[in-house]
């Protein structure tokens, strides 16, 4: 088996970071950053998700390219769904002109 066994210290460290980030995101939401609040919240969430994927789910250590391909294409498709729908929604708002 070409398996990578990680030290439990690493897992605990990641855990600590994740907990801290949770605290930070909860706290930062109460600070007025204008439109940046949403951006920060999403960045933190993505950071946390990335840590989970890379370390807990071992993607960083797997030799398998396919796993990454799968993840990236799923995200790409999510982007298609959201992005192309927004070509409609950005312009068409309730009570706004645009749509016929």
């Amino acid at each position, binding site marked *: 088996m070409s398996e990578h066994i990680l030290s439990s210290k690493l897992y605990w460290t990641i855990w600590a970071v994740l907990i801290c980030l949770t605290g930070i995101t909860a706290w930062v939401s109460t600070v007025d950053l204008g439109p940046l609040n949403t951006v920060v919240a999403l960045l933190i969430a993505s950071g946390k998700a990335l840590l989970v994927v890379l370390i807990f789910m071992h993607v960083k250590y797997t030799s398998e390219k*396919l796993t990454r391909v799968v993840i990236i*294409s*799923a995200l790409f*498709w999510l982007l*298609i*769904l959201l992005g*192309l*729908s927004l*070509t*409609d*929604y*950005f*312009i*068409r708002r*309730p009570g706004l002109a*645009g*749509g*016929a």
Partner: protein
Amino acid sequence: MATAVSIAAEREHYLNKEYGIRSWLLTTDHKRIALLYLASITFFFFIGGFFALLIRLELLTPAGDLVQADTYNKLFTMHGVIMVFFFLIPAVPAVLGNFLVPLMIGARDLAFPKINLLSWYCYIAGGILVLHAMLTGGLDTGWTFYTPFSTAFSNTAVVEAGLGVFINGFSSILTGLNFIVTIHRMRAPGLTWSRLPLFLWSHYATSVIMLLGTPVIAITLVLVVLERAFHLGIFDPTRGGDPLLFQHLFWFYSHPAVYIMILPSMGVVSEIVTCFSRKRVFGYYFVAMASIGIAVIGFFVWAHHMFVAGMSLYAALIFSILSYLVAVPSAIKVFNWTATLYKGSVSFSTPMLYAFGFIGLFTMGGLTGLFLAALGIDVHVTDTYFVVAHFHYIMVGGTVMGYLGGMHYWWPKISGRLYPESWGRLAALIVFLGFNLTFFPQFILGYLGMPRRYWQYPPEFQVLNVLSTAGSTILAVGYLLPMVYFLWSMRYGKLADDNPWNAAGLEWKTTSPPPTFNFEETPVVTWEAYNYNELPALEEVRVER
């Protein structure tokens, strides 16, 4: 040859290994599961077809006289739901794909045999729910389930039917999952990606769509069901919801779903065309990549079903231009099939007749898709019989033709018997003629302005409707024939050789029917796909059998 065949008949294979209900209902053999699917989709096809005949009968006269308005609405809804979700989407992948994917890559089974069986049970569970919904109250939303009609106005069994389709969705997802993993992980030694039969490429592409599209329709139907039950308001304009959001979500799946329906059939046609012109396919790489291209670009075009739905103008422009992009890979395929015939050694066997039918009718259906993607024209013809004709040309003229062609082509492998060739050709001809008579008039009807889903219509449309109805009865005969002679041949048909067409491909390298684990020993591939230069046409095939 006769002796070899009779020995084969006594040999143990997947069909005669075990008998009894349990050995079928609990089987994990992909070949048996394929046959379970075959039986069930055939059942649903005839139900859906029966509804189609009733629709056509009602439309024989302008007045709504045969059935009630509500009944008519239920008829076309159930026709659409059954034909799309319970026949066409599983048709080629779940029957031929299930049977052939492991055989073609030299594996002993799909990667997850139990999941494969589970997928059939999802299909059956969904089917039972939908049939039950049909018998108790029916469903009258159209196969598109548009809100707010489906969520707030229809008083039919929307919840049950929605759940049925939802559960059935998992059968698609599980099949797709199995195919992708199998194709990635279980190819025989030497079977590189560039040696993969095009059938597998198209199933790979199909699986991608099944995996990434189906979950979206699943959650959408869940939301519809919840909306109906708890008045969530997500799709309800009286509460600030946007009915168009439903349409976006629905078509995000349902447009790519049309490629779930066509791609596998395209794979079948690639196999047939090469085999019966004894030639390597023209432009292998391009045909393979066209499948992938269709699968990917197919996700970019969904809102072309919503040009007049009240979308923003810019979205309409974007989706129109993207719709044209997806037509390019389809064009590539049509041209390559045609070019494959060039300097081939073409035989007019039944599967090849179906393949010809496919190419011709798909081309016409596809070209009329170009009309629909043109914004200015779609405004006039959307929701008319022009659209109905467009999709029947592709789905019935294309996919069903391809499916029937594939059934004939692989029937000897599946059953170990030959079907009667001249009956086969006759049926193919009847289907082709009946089909055109049924659906060509609908193009004209549509442009003249006859809206779809109409139970009664102004009298000036009658002539064309009568033609269409007449055609549909011919079509019915054409579909009943193969069913009859396939059943007949299971008992009385001539025993088939391992490779009756002398075709390329690993599935022909094992016995007919194959043993439970497909191959006595794992094959090692040392040749390119479609190495027809090494496989001269059989004498028997050349002459009428």
